[in-house]
């Protein structure tokens, strides 16, 4: 079966962002970018399905600027067979991304599409669910385990109360949670090989999807800073402060 994996180029998770002085947005100039960590988990799962003989082909897709091809090359180095780049320099909101991905799903007809549960820039947690709605496919979000069983997919989901297992009719959409797997690192020879793997480029115009935004970013501000506190020298002092200064225990 064919597996499609959606990857997003985002700020590296180690970087602490800065807000632009004019409060128009976050400042991403000269900031280290990387594949969204949840997408790394998605790629890893797809590659493991191929290694296990369940998947026959792994296709990586991204919607984003020219530079996002770096993340597609990373996916190829990690084991994806080919890549599709929906290229646009415009900012793309979740719904537009989902519509573009739905077009790619229509074209590629994957049995399984894997996305991250959340992009760590917008923290939206939406695109997988939207893609499922638009393609009329069932969704297994926040997956910590998946198993293909014939025509169905069993998905264990991380929910607030613990774990839930659902069975989905294939073709289906899955979004990854942190415990699904531990992604591998790309090896140098694979990075070299990835440069020769096929990467096709299309655009929102070619796919017939308008990416105009529906949500206006009015302003972006830094969060209220916490006042740095004090160090206490002993447990006694801590208990005293909590009782008599902070008054949070009695």
């Amino acid at each position, binding site marked *: 079966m064919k597996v499609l994996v959606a990857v997003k180029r985002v700020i590296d998770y180690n970087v*602490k*962002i800065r*807000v632009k002085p004019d409060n128009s947005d*976050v400042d991403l100039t000269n900031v280290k970018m990387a594949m969204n960590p*949840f997408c790394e988990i998605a790629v890893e799962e797809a590659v493991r399905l191929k290694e296990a003989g369940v998947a026959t082909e792994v296709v990586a897709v991204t919607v984003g600027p020219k530079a996002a091809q770096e993340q597609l090359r990373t996916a190829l180095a990690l084991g994806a067979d080919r890549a599709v780049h929906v290229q646009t320099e415009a900012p793309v909101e*979740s*719904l537009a991304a*989902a519509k573009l991905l739905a077009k790619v799903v229509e074209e590629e007809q994957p049995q399984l599409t894997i996305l991250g*549960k*959340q992009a*760590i*820039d917008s*923290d*939206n*947690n*939406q695109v997988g*669910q*939207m893609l499922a*709605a638009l393609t009329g496919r*069932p*969704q*297994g*979000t*926040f997956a910590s385990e998946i198993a293909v069983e014939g025509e169905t997919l069993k998905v264990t989901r*991380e*929910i*607030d*109360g*613990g*774990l*839930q297992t*659902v*069975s989905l*009719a294939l073709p289906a959409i899955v979004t990854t*949670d*942190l*415990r699904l797997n531990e992604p591998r690192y790309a090896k140098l020879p694979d990075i070299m090989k990835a440069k020769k793997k096929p990467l096709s480029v299309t655009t929102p115009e070619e796919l017939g999807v308008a990416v105009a935004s*529906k*949500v*206006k*970013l*009015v*302003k*972006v*501000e*830094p*969060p209220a800073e916490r*006042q740095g*506190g*004090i*160090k*206490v020298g002993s*447990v*006694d002092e*801590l*208990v005293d*402060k909590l009782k008599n200064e*902070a008054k*949070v*225990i009695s």
Partner: protein
Amino acid sequence: MSILVLAEHHDGALAGATAHVVAAAKEIGGDIDVLVAGEGVSAIAEAAAKLDGVSRVRVADHAVYAHQLAEPMGALLAELAGDYSHVLAVGSTTGKNVLPRLAALKDVAQLSEIIAVESADTFKRPIYAGNAIATVQSDDALKVITVRATAFDAVGESGSAAIEAVKTVFDNAQSSFVGEQLAESDRPELGAAKVVVSGGRGMGSGENFKLLDGIADKLGAAIGASRAAVDAGFVPNDMQVGQTGKIVAPELYIAVGISGAIQHLAGMKDAKVIVAINKDEEAPIFQVADYGLVGDLFEVLPELESKL
């Protein structure tokens, strides 16, 4: 304006977070309906009818809505949404599972985890793990929104809304419930607890988490964890606090053996008072802690328990 709030419920009881979302709905202003969807949910509907500000509770009681699977829930909400200007839900794993689906079915954007209502179409929400706060304005006729419950104070329970049945049933051949493993605990729920004691990788093992039990007992606290502690298998996933886990905003948060990565801070930095216990005096957690204690947790915790 008319607003539909999706009730959050577990184990036959209305979840407290629903009252916080109703509070957000009141700030938007307009008539507020609550939708209770599930199987055997009449007691939940009655609890929802008591929430202040709610004019009507709509109840979809059918086996197809048991376990609140996304496919029938999304279809149901899309059917009802035509009556409303806003649909709100808790930013829980249920709300996050269903609301984006609803938004796509209605061809509108979804706003995730709002923390403030500026006006009926403008909201604040954290982005980049809470390191920036965005003010966003939606043009859509229908606004589909998940709400960070800890950012709004719960409404009271002196109301008496009308309860009406919703008969629409959506068949669901696409997905089915197989089973669940739910954590059982006598402790308060993480998101609602007044005190939270969390352990990190520094705890060393699941066994050592018992060191937090006595303290949590004395303080009536919930117990949380960092991702590293969950990944290492010390404790289950439902205890993870952070950007991609639970968001807590207790009166008191005690972080034990947690370094203070931004992804962890994203889940707890709105606590009123933060205490950090860590043997590394350079640990970033001390930059947000009101009271830091540099020391070995294996010495500090037993002493703290005895002195509380």
